[in-house]
């Protein structure tokens, strides 16, 4: 286990990058580089990240980056992984770094293909629960009730459970994370690096621009997502499901804060009527019963 103090001082996400103030994904990216160092080939499909890099001839990334098509992170990473094998470069980690749109929607085919082929790489979905790059439209990962520019009255459907879809691929390692819990995230990345095959990490990354809260509150909102149980921190290692701290004690309902605390801090949920909030609370409670069952199983899939 790494502690905060042991993290490297080197920064591979350089100063002056183009993210919005308080951007959750850029915090997560900075942590990713801290966890994996600079021996990575980063694959980036169209997303906020393509903007965060900064325009030619500049870049804010101090690692090699292959930008690729919106739906192609999984496939491009497959090609890179194959080339690394040919070149015998086994000390380089291939990382797909894609948004929730590029993962749960348009890119799911190439990710699924890569996972099924057991491609050796880490795929990180940074989930800001919308298409940030194109101005905040709904994605498959947008939660029920959330305002986006294409769901002006709030999304009517639930969030797609992408980690479970990845679990159905029976890949060796799946984890959820949130940059508000940096050590947890870093440890998961480091663990993933040591495992051969396809590793999937889904990291909830609050987005002040899209979620409509003050830019100084990103870490706090992420914590609340976890503390209310809206976002659970867990791992599925070789099929075995395990809740991680601080989520592991939340199967006890009394430990979970009411979801309203999380929702009320974000303007994207402002219009939500009382009964919708109750419905979300019921769903969250149901999820936790499900987690409890999963934790008791030898294999979750």
């Amino acid at each position: 286990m790494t502690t905060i103090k042991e993290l490297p001082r080197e920064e591979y996400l350089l100063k002056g990058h183009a993210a919005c103030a308080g951007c959750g994904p850029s915090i997560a990216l900075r942590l990713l580089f801290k966890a994996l160092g600079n021996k990575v080939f980063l694959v980036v499909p169209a997303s906020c990240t393509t903007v965060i890099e900064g325009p030619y001839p500049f870049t804010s990334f101090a690692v090699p980056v292959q930008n690729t098509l919106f739906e192609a992170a999984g496939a491009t990473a497959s090609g890179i992984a194959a080339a690394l094998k040919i070149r015998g470069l086994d000390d380089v980690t291939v990382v797909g770094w894609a948004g929730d749109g590029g993962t749960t929607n348009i890119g799911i085919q190439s990710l699924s293909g890569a996972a099924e082929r057991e491609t050796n790489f880490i795929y990180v979905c940074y989930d800001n629960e919308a298409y940030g790059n194109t101005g905040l439209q709904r994605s498959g990962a947008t939660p029920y009730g959330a305002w986006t520019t294409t769901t002006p009255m709030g999304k009517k459907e639930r969030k797609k459970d992408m980690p479970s879809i990845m679990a159905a691929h029976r890949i060796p390692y799946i984890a959820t994370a949130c940059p508000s819990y940096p050590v947890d995230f870093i440890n998961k990345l480091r663990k993933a690096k040591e495992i051969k095959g396809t590793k999937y990490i889904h990291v909830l990354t609050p987005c002040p621009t899209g979620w409509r809260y003050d830019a100084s509150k990103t870490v706090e909102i992420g914590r609340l997502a976890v503390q209310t149980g809206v976002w659970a921190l867990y791992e599925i290692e070789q099929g075995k499901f395990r809740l991680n701290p601080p989520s592991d004690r939340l199967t006890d309902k009394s430990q979970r804060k009411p979801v309203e605390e999380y929702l009320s801090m974000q303007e994207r949920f402002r219009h939500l009527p009382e009964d919708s909030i109750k419905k979300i609370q019921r769903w969250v409670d149901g999820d936790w019963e499900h987690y409890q069952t999963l934790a008791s199983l030898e294999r979750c899939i």
Partner: protein
Amino acid sequence: MGRVMIDTANHVAAYAAKAARVRVVAAYPITPQTTVVEKIAELVEKGEMDAEYICVESEHSAIAACIGAAAAGVRTFTASSAQGLALMHEALHWASGARLPIVMVVVNRAMGAPWSIWPDFSDSLSQRDTGWIQFYCADSQEVFDTVIQAYRLCEDERIFLPAMVCLEGFILSHKYVPVKIHDQDDVDAFLPPYRSGWILDTSNPVTCVNLVSPEWYMEFRYMIQEAMENAKMLIPKIDKEYGERFGFRYGGLVDKYLCEDAELVICTMGTMGAEAKIAANNLRKEGLKVGVARIRVFRPFPVEEIRKLAEKARMIATIDRHISFGMDGFLATEVKASLYDMKNKPSIAGFIAGLGGRDVTFKTIEKVARKCMKWLGNGRVERETEWVDLRDVKT
């Protein structure tokens, strides 16, 4: 030395990829391309070809995987056809824009709807503006030789662009003919190890193809245009050197036949170019001065060569296995565009033939040529675009 084998153009394409020492292949099956990738998969499985074969889940992923592998520093190959090629369309721009020297065999097949598995050039010609170099082959030997030439060209620092090597489905793809497969040592001597403009490298990190502002985008496009111009100069050189080493030459950009004194030049592509030569032989026996210009390279388009031919000929007949709806075949358009400012240019007649695999034999071409000769005698082209052997249809 080499060895002569009797096989299909598709298998020959696979052997060419092997001879080129391709290291990563990513492809998705589609008729009539399938046997190219099946053969490669077999060669890789048997250990006869030292490569990674990535069984991708779509054509889009096939080309995206090639992009990744080429960027990570190895020679890549893919093959596709029709709807598969169309599904790649977006990524084709990406490959050329990133200046990655990927080579793809396109087994030409007509686009649906309605479904057709038989050939025309509508699939690859729709990709005309993607920044890929496009070769069109007339026989199986040319397929082998062009794949090797294409790698040599694409990996030249003056080019660094991807290329398509196109061959017509079934007419070539599944036809067994004798073909010479050159010795590995000879191919190695002709084709140096993989080179590209840049590779992913942790000791020299670059951000490849990131956002480019209006201040710079045009310059990137201009560099591709320059590379295309360079290709016009390099392709004939490479073809010549190849000919000296291996004995097979294809005329560089345009395969010209009996053009020196031709009154009528038949300008066409692919196997129709081979048929046109037979037609020209037959017509010459009747005293008709017919020559053939088979366009071997469609991108870059051999404007200068067409102009040279036009200085001598009285008429150019283009035969397109393609139609750009609302206009005419691309070959006709481009030949006309090449000549528009010439004084005393020859008349031009365009023919649309062989769509969806309809047979275009030397007999069809003779018929077309005779019609042109008649028009030439009358001093006027009766129809600027004519569909050859069209049935009566009500629209």
